[in-house]
């Protein structure tokens, strides 16, 4: 047999070597990007917020398209999630955008379970991906990823503080999805109130331990802008798809008698900041965080829940076969134990039933015996009565015969006189 010797890479990790000329692997990022372009991208946004906060309008404004549907009614019995997928294209980039809306959020009288359907939805997307990943024959590279990459949480522009529903919901979601809180319809708040509102919201989030998404600051090219934007959270946005003429340009705006709120004017609202952060700077990071942090956490919890564990580093590396055998035996053992238990229970029940039936049988026998005896007694009585009647009859017969005899004798003796008397009577 051939012997094989492996030599690990020399030294600690790899050596750094200088290149004597142009090799050409600097084209690798281009090769990677081209492959992604051919494949297309997907991005999934979840909008959580009460009905009427302008979620659909904001999506329309962000992506410059009229997406769908009519505004929802306020009388939904529970919170449902409605998702729609759109194909957008810009220059050579094709994006499969999925927008998920929470329908009926905040409309119920009892809102205790509002967050549940949202959590279930997010988990369901993770579960679908996990199922695909665990398949034997899988097609991960062509799988349509439905996991939520960003959750825009719409805060009502009360100007005071977060509602308890908001805090509870965000707390439940912060370990499952990247949360970006935004103040909706912020043209309802004045500038000074807005500053106070933002501070209040941020401090409430911190004091309640809610982890919102932080724009990443580890890459120098975007560290500065991201850290500036982090300090502007939550973004105060205004959405509008209507255009108004300002000066000699048409701009997206909302027109009031007292003035016009321009959506893309940074003095008026933070819409441009949101678009910049969400789409133009951090879309890829949002996707990556979803995959490497939130999904991994879900996967870990789910697998541990199902009872699996990795071997500890001291034991020798396990083989699939061994671990499977072990687990299988354990399972079979449990199965057998359960089977035995069931069988025991069954036997027990049968015994009990048998005893019951025997008891019943005994009773019936006794009843039968009693009846029989009764019957016999009756019969005896009747026979006795019959006998006595018979006796009486006999006695009577005897008496009758004796009487007839006497009568006959008497007749013979005074028979003629009786005849004469009869004849005389007849005359």
């Amino acid at each position, binding site marked *: 047999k*051939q012997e*094989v*010797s492996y*030599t690990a*890479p*020399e030294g600690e*990790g*790899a050596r*750094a*070597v200088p*290149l*004597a000329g*142009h*090799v*050409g*692997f*600097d*084209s*690798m*990022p281009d*090769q*990677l*990007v081209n*492959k*992604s372009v*051919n494949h297309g*991208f997907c991005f999934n946004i979840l909008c959580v917020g009460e009905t009427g906060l302008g979620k659909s309008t904001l999506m329309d404004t*962000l992506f410059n398209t009229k997406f769908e549907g009519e505004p929802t009614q306020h009388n939904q019995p529970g919170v449902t999630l409605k998702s729609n997928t759109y194909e*957008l294209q*810009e*220059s050579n*980039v094709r994006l499969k955008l999925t927008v998920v809306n929470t329908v009926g959020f905040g409309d119920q009288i009892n809102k205790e379970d509002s967050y549940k359907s949202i959590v279930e939805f997010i988990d369901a997307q993770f579960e679908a991906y996990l*199922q695909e990943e*665990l398949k*034997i*024959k899988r097609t991960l590279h062509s799988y349509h990823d439905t996991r939520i990459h960003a959750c825009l949480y719409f805060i009502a522009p009360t100007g005071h503080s977060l509602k308890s529903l908001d805090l509870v919901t965000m707390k439940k979601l912060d370990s499952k999805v990247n949360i970006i809180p935004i103040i909706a319809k912020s043209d309802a708040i004045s500038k000074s109130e807005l500053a106070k509102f933002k501070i209040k919201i941020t401090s409430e989030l911190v004091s309640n331990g809610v982890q919102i998404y932080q724009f990443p600051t580890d890459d120098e090219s975007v560290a500065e*802008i991201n850290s500036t934007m982090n300090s502007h959270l939550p973004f105060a946005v205004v959405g509008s798809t209507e255009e108004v003429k300002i000066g000699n*340009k048409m701009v997206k705006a909302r027109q009031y008698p007292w003035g016009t709120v321009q959506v893309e004017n940074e003095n008026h609202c933070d819409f441009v900041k949101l678009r*910049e952060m969400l*789409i*133009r*700077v*951090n*879309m*890829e*990071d949002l996707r*990556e965080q979803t995959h490497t942090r939130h999904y991994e956490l879900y996967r*870990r919890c789910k*697998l*541990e829940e*199902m009872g*699996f564990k*990795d071997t500890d580093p001291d034991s020798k*590396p396990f083989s*699939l076969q061994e*671990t*499977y055998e*072990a*687990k*299988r035996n354990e399972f079979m053992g449990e199965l057998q134990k359960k089977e035995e238990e069931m069988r025991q229970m069954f036997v027990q029940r049968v015994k009990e039933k048998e005893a019951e039936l025997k008891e019943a049988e005994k009773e019936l026998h006794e009843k039968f015996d009693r009846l029989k005896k009764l019957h016999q007694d009756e019969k005896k009585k009747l026979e006795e009565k019959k006998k006595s009647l018979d006796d009486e009859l006999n006695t009577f017969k005897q008496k009758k015969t004796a009487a007839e005899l006497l009568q006959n004798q008497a007749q013979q003796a005074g028979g003629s006189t009786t005849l004469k008397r009869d004849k005389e009577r007849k005359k």
Partner: protein
Amino acid sequence: MIGHTSVAVGGLYGEKASGPTVDFSYVGIDAILEQMRRKAMKQGFELNIMVVGQSGLGKSTLMNTLFKSKVSRKSVLATSQEKIPKTIEIKSISHDIEEKGVRMKLTVIDTPGFGDQINNENCWQPIMKFINDQYEAYLQEEININRKKRIPDSRVHCCIYFIPPTGHCLRPLDVEFMRRLSKVVNIVPVIAKADTLTLEERDFFKKKIREELRANGIDVYPQKEFDEDAEDRMINEKIREMIPFAVVGSDQEYQVNGRRLLGRKTKWGTIEVENIAHCEFAYLRDLLIRTHMQNIKDITSSIHYEMYRVRRLNENNTVVAHANGIPEHHLAAHEM
């Protein structure tokens, strides 16, 4: 970014021209390309190349020529006399190289002893085992519950097979090796030391080799069945008509026509390695590095590795899809 201008914040991207006009239809979705590029630059790339062939065919030199630096094992280990080992050994050595900000971890896997014995039966086995071991290592990490953020990729992306320049046809060893290994790894066959063949001899040899590969059902890279679309097929057909590339390697520079070029100097002339009139090194380099490197890695991970995974997971003779064993009744849903 071509064409569209945008309302950029604070001059974020130097390359973007921000003019006076505002384009409403611009959302900025295509900025994701730039984001991906940034992420790739930050993470760096990994590439694992295996070289297989008898000793003396210029494997180390070719590696050094491809990457323009001393990346081969021989250059690193300063042993004066390389003895041909009695058995096949598998030796890998890694380097960190960087070009224009793009960092790459290159691992060159050498197989000294291949084809050098008198009896070369089963000499592909240790190599096959090594390749499968790398797939296994990756699989083990992938099925861990607590797994690394980026699974270290030691899988062999590409195996360069060196054919000696006999000029006639493939030897049984070549056929046997390529037949078996082409099923688990991307094989790129090259005619080594091609400066001993004239152009006619080279063309004849190549045609013969292609015929033999076809006759034996050997699918070398780029494999026909993995062409994604018509455009892919067109590009790859052109490559398939040229393989195997006839290469010459050199890490010596000579002065030719006033320029310093990589080449081999002989009494009858200097062979310029990067001159496509002389040899096909440039085509090999372009294929492996400049155009198809990502594709080679993709085929390894989404086809060869997946095939290994399917085989491995089915080995347990049940419908188990997870290493730690999921009870059958639960897993019925997982089976394809």
